[in-house]
Structure formats: structure tokens, C-alpha cells
């Protein structure tokens, strides 16, 4: 057995104050914006440390040292590694910003550690670069660098949706909109087309897209298998660079833009229910499918959930859980005697969101790691409005189905 160990050292200069970097190291949601996909940590001495990546790797351990605005140390039990190792991250004021030094120690040597050592080197270099990007620009480079197909996906297919869309497959996602100027637009893709496969990967969940394009970059072409009704098409689509989200620089401007987007959505929403009776709105197209009113209840839950996201971003807490239970939607929908009351409550929640965004504390706006993500939750390009709109056809279809009966 080879008992010799090595220490891997990495440094990164970041143009942000020490306090903000300390926050990024010790706050659960913040850690997820630059390092991993899920973090479950308790940043105190002997507190738990668990970070997890969607690709299938994780490390667990515990904090051994936590010093405010100076740094943290933790143990690292990484998946597939022969023994636990140690990580120490220190922060030092330098050149108006912060110098981050990361030491990964007690890493073994010899054959058993060869791959792990190589991966540590690559992964930490990448992670620290992303940390800089996130802290300075407020954007997670891992997402920003993913090439863009240019479609807004709807839900994921099941037997019923496949029937509704008339496609002969049960896996994939239907398109609800196309990004202007994207490769998808140039390729002639349109709403209700079903994307079944991208670059050989079958689309089953939200992760599938990222998996499919992982090996590609903007400018590359990928093959998509798309169904338009029963017709199967194989379409080459050029990947483009993700637009850098333009986030309004002040809370007031952000609130204004979100308000504008809500006003537009409300108009479209009300148009769907125009002339629909209470009975039509409450009728389920099938026993397990949401009625238009239940879909509205889902939108109300989403608004409440998003509103909570503001509070959690401000407090640095983990976001609330989300659920889509038919029973729960029914209970909520039933507690409003009329559709109009439910819509009124949705609008009220939107107003609350706008009012709360307008008065976001300055320190949150300055803390880019929180602010940009929060802003994008409400802006049309990435966030809520796209989700709301993706439910419009469903509500329309439910009302139409109720009328036909």
C-alpha cells in the first residue's frame, strides 16, 4: 500500500468582496449556483457537507473548520475514491477583490489515485473559474455555456399527451414556443412538434437536453428526431450561443419589467376563459386530467411558490418544495366558488410579487449570485411567464373538451 499523499493547490482571484465569497461557500443555494447541482450543508463545526452532481458523482463529509469571512475546511468522501480526503478553502482580501485558495490534501498517490487526481485537478479548476464568473456576472457558466437549441419545451409525454398530439411515441417533449433567431426557428420547428430525440439521446426529463448537447458547442449541428402528428422527421438543427440574460440593474426597473410581462399574461389568460361557464371550466377532460380551473389553481400555486423564492433569495434559505397533486389542486380550486375569484387571486399574487421586487434591499441587488437568479425567475426569457404560457393550450383544450360533451 502506498501511504504517500499529495496536496493539490488552486488559486483564483475574484472581483468581489470577501463577505460575498464567504456566503457563496457557506450558503446552500449559493453553493448550487457555482459548484454542484444539489448541496445539503450545515456550515458549522462538525456540520454536514454533501454536494451532488447530476452526472452521478457526489462527495459527503463534514465541516472541520468554519471561520467567518476567512474560510472553511471540510472532509471529502468522494464516490469511488479509496479513502476520504480534506479540502481547505481560504479567502484573502487582495487588489480590491478576493484571492481564493483551495487546498485538496491527503490525496493518495500511485495507480489507485491516478484518475481521481486528474479529475480533482480538472474539476476544481473549472469550479473556481465558474465561481469567478458567478460572483462577477451573476450567471452560472455551466448553464450559460450550454449551447441552445432554441425551443421552449412543454411537458414530457405520457400516453394521454401522445394521444392528444397524435404522435406514435410516448417519450419526448412538445414544443410550446421557438426562440427568435435560433437554429430551431431556421429549421422550421413549430409549436406542438414533439421532440423525441436530440443527438441520439431520447428526451425523457429536463436533464435530457443538457445530457444530449454536453459534447457540443454553439455552431455545431445536431440531429433531432421530431414528430409532427404521426409524421416522423429527422432534422439537423444548428446550436446557437445562449443569449446573455439582460437583467435590469435596479430593483425598480426589474419590477417594472415583470409587471409588463404579467399584464400581457393576464390578458391572454382572461381571453381563454372568456365565455366559458363555471361548469365548463370545472370539467375534467378525463378522470385524471386537470380541469381548466384546476390548471388555474396550479398557476396560483406556482405564483405563491415564486413569491416565496423572493423571500428565500433574500434570506439565503433553501427554496420551498413543489408539488402538483390532483387532490391538492382540487382542494384549492374548490375553495374558490368562481373562476373569476381564482383569477383575481392570481393577479393579487402577481401584484405582491411586483411590489416586493420593487423594494428588494440594496444588498440583495448587489449580491449578484442571488439577484440575477431571482430576476430570471420572473423574466420572460427563462422564468415563470414561459411556464404560465405553456399551460394555456391545456386550459383551452380542457374547456373545448367540456363544450363538446
Amino acid at each position, binding site marked *: 500500500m502506498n501511504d504517500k499523499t499529495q496536496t493539490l493547490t488552486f488559486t483564483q482571484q475574484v472581483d468581489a468582496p470577501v463577505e460575498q465569497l464567504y456566503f457563496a461557500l457557506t450558503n446552500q443555494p449559493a453553493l448550487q449556483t457555482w459548484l454542484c447541482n444539489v448541496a445539503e450543508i450545515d456550515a458549522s463545526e*462538525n456540520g454536514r457537507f454533501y454536494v*451532488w452532481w447530476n452526472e*452521478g458523482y457526489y462527495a459527503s463529509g*463534514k465541516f472541520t473548520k468554519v471561520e467567518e469571512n476567512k474560510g472553511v475546511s471540510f*472532509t471529502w468522501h468522494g*464516490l469511488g475514491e479509496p479513502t476520504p480526503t480534506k479540502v481547505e478553502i481560504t479567502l484573502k482580501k487582495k487588489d480590491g477583490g478576493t484571492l481564493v485558495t483551495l487546498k485538496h490534501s491527503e490525496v493518495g498517490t500511485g495507480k489507485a489515485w491516478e484518475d481521481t487526481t486528474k479529475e480533482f485537478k480538472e474539476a476544481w479548476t473549472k469550479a473556481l473559474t465558474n465561481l469567478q464568473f458567478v460572483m462577477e456576472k451573476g450567471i452560472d457558466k455551466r448553464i450559460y455555456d450550454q449551447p441552445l437549441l432554441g425551443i421552449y419545451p412543454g411537458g414530457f409525454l405520457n400516453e394521454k399527451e401522445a394521444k392528444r398530439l397524435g404522435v406514435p411515441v410516448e417519450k419526448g417533449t412538445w414544443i410550446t414556443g421557438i426562440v427568435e433567431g435560433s437554429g430551431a426557428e431556421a429549421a422550421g420547428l413549430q409549436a406542438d412538434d414533439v421532440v423525441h430525440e436530440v443527438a441520439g439521446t431520447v428526451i425523457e426529463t429536463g436533464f435530457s437536453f443538457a445530457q444530449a448537447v454536453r459534447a457540443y458547442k454553439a455552431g455545431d449541428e445536431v440531429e433531432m428526431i421530431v414528430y409532427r402528428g404521426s409524421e416522423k422527421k429527422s432534422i439537423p438543427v444548428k446550436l446557437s450561443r445562449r443569449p446573455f440574460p439582460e437583467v435590469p440593474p435596479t430593483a425598480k426597473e426589474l419590477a417594472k419589467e415583470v409587471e409588463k410581462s404579467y399584464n400581457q399574461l393576464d390578458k391572454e389568460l382572461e381571453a381563454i376563459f372568456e365565455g366559458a361557464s363555471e361548469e365548463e371550466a370545472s370539467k375534467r377532460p378525463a378522470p385524471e386530467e386537470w380541469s381548466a380551473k384546476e390548471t388555474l389553481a396550479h398557476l396560483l400555486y406556482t405564483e405563491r411558490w415564486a413569491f416565496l423564492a423572493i423571500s428565500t433569495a433574500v434570506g439565503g434559505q433553501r427554496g420551498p418544495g413543489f408539488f402538483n397533486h390532483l387532490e391538492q389542486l382540487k*382542494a384549492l380550486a374548490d375553495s374558490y366558488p368562481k373562476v373569476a375569484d381564482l383569477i383575481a387571486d392570481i393577479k393579487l399574487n402577481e401584484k405582491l410579487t411586483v411590489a416586493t421586487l420593487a423594494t428588494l434591499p440594496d444588498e440583495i441587488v448587489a449580491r449578484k449570485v442571488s439577484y440575477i437568479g431571482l430576476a430570471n425567475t420572473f423574466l420572460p426569457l427563462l422564468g415563470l411567464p414561459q411556464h404560465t404560457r405553456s399551460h394555456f393550450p391545456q386550459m383551452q383544450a380542457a374547456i373545448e373538451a367540456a363544450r363538446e360533451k
Partner: protein
Amino acid sequence: MDKDSKTLKFNRTIQAHADYLYYAFTKKTGWNDWFSEGAEGDALKHKQIFLMWKSGYSAGLQFTHLKENEQLTFTWHGSEDTHPTEVNVYFQEQGEETEVVVDHRRVSADRVEYITKLWEEGLRNLQSVFEEGRDRRIYDRPMFGVMIKDMVTPEMAKEKNLPADHGMLLGETLKGMGAYASGLTGGDLIVEVSGVKIENYASIEKVIGPAKPGDIVEMLYYRGDEKRVAQVELTLRSLPEIPPTAQGFSEKLSEIYQSANAKIDEVTEGITETQAEYRRKPGEWNSKEVFAHLIANERDMYSWAGTLVQGNESYGWLDHLPARLKSIQLVFPQIPDLRHELQSVQREGVGFIAELPGEFVSRKSSYVRLANSFFFAIPMHYKDHIGQIQDNLAAFQGVS
């Protein structure tokens, strides 16, 4: 290293079908129902689960092999363990019962005792949860009989001007249990128990973990600025009957709300807006904020319940956030509005419980946890906050 490591084997035959037990080992809610005290991840979707205990121990699990209702294999990275270990679990269904076999390999000699206790107690509880709907971690746990309002941090101590920078601040003490009998009451700050400094939940575990019902512990606590000592007996908690059907659960819940609402109406009868906005001291809620908190708490409870039904419970308790309390009052500005909204959220909750899916109810493990937590926490929580409104009103009387 390897020559000292051991393979540990545990098995238990449980009156339940294999699919329920498979759920108990693959979903985060499933694990929490009988084993862990917090979990993240999903064995089926992501092949990873992270288990946590209040004691501070945690383990990362990577699933390498899954055969539905029959077998699973995972690696186990325990936070105190010196190297990763490997676990195999087998389910063998025979008629109405299923044998569960846990095979934990490569456990190092110094961790054998800990891991053995973990699985032995765990599997015994798994059986109890599925057969009797009794979570032994609650039913068999010796308790002080206190409701903890806050775990005090140095910042909180400064802000609230507390006499110590650590400890558990009591919401109230439970009638018929040790702390109550020894004269402790809401507002007391317990700083030490049996020589253990109380700093977090893990320090409570240090005291309770090895204790038995009937044991007596010595508590050091502050009442106001005065330091006191009390001998407190640890006892079992008496737990309410759990209705076997969702309908019964829902009716009982409705009764709880009715009696809480009656008490609220009694206390707030004739309350003026000025009284409702009176703040006893900085950092304390006024009565409107108490209402807003109750509304937020109801919503969060059912949000948690919803994720529990989904099997991926999430613990976002956000009912103290100032922005949220403020926003609820923006929409429901006056006491009658707030009262009306509170009752409407309760009704929605009662409606949801009545509609709980049959599969969820018959699997018992999460259903019982949900019912236990609701029947225990809801009356207590209302009582606590109604008391707060009473205190506000009394203090207002004092100044006006």
C-alpha cells in the same frame, strides 16, 4: 484496513408487501419514515440519496444496482467512517410478509458497534412502522416534555437580550410530563442538561440518545436573569389515536381547527386595529403578524404534506419571513380579513386531507407520520400563538 473490516448481516420479517418496503429504501420520504431524520435525493431517478440524523451523523448513498421489489445495492459514505462501505438489501416476499435482509460489507472494526446499532434499531422500527403504524423514534423516545421555540444563537441572544448565548428557549411545557411537573414553563432558557451544554439539536441527542424513560436529568436554566436548577424526569409522550381513514383524519383535523378558531374568536373579540398593530417590544410580532404567520404556517404545512405524498418531502418552512408576513397583510389588511383567510386555508387543508390517495393511506408509514405531526403540532402551535396575542393585548392594556 481490509483485514480488520467486517461484514454485518441483519434480517427481519415484516408483515408488508415488498413494494412498500422497496419504497422505504428508495424514496427520501420512504427513508425518513423509519430510518433517517432528513434526506435528499432519489434512488430511482438519480441513483443517489443522502441521509441525515440529528446526532450529526450522515451518509451518502450511491445505488449501483436496483431490482424492483427484490434487491438493491449501494455504497455508503458515512460521515464518521474511514472508508466507503457497501450495502446489499434483499426483499423476499412470501404471502403477506416480506423478509428484509441487510448485508453491510467492509465495515471497519471501530465502526461495527455504531453501524450495528443503526441497522438493528432501524429495522425494528421499520417493522413497527409498517405493522403497527408506530414510529418508535417518537413513541419510545424519552422526553423532557418541552416545546422548543428557538435554539439560541449568539446573534439571537444579542437581539433578544437573553441571559445566555446558547440553549433552548421554551415555547411551553407539556402537562403531565417531566418539565411541567418540575415547574418549568414557556420562556425559560435551558442552557445545560446533565452536564451537556445545549447548543443545537445534536446536543439534545447526546442527552436523550442513551437515556431511558424514568431517568432523571439535571437542568440548568434561566428564568429571566435568574439562574435555576431543576431535576426533570424523562417520560414517554402520550400520543393521540390515529384515524385509519383519510375521512376520519380530515374530520379530526376539522375539530382541531374549530376549537382553535373558537379560542381565537374569544381572545380577539372586539379587538381594534390599533390593538392588533401594537408591538410589545422590538423584534416581537404584533397580533396581525401573528395571524399572518398562522396563515403562512398553514400553507407551508400543506405544501410539506403535498411533497410527502409525492415521496420527495421538502422542508421549506418559511413562515417567519418578514417579507412574507408583510405581504400577507397587504392582501388581508384587517383582522376580519386575516381571520377569514386563515379559515379558508384551513378548509382547503381539511379538503386535501379528505382526498389523500388510498395508496398513501394504506402504506401507513408516511400517513402516520403526517397524522402524528399534525395532531401534535397544530393544537400546540395555535395555543402558543394565541397566548402571544393575549400577551400583546394585556401589554396594550398596561400602556393605554
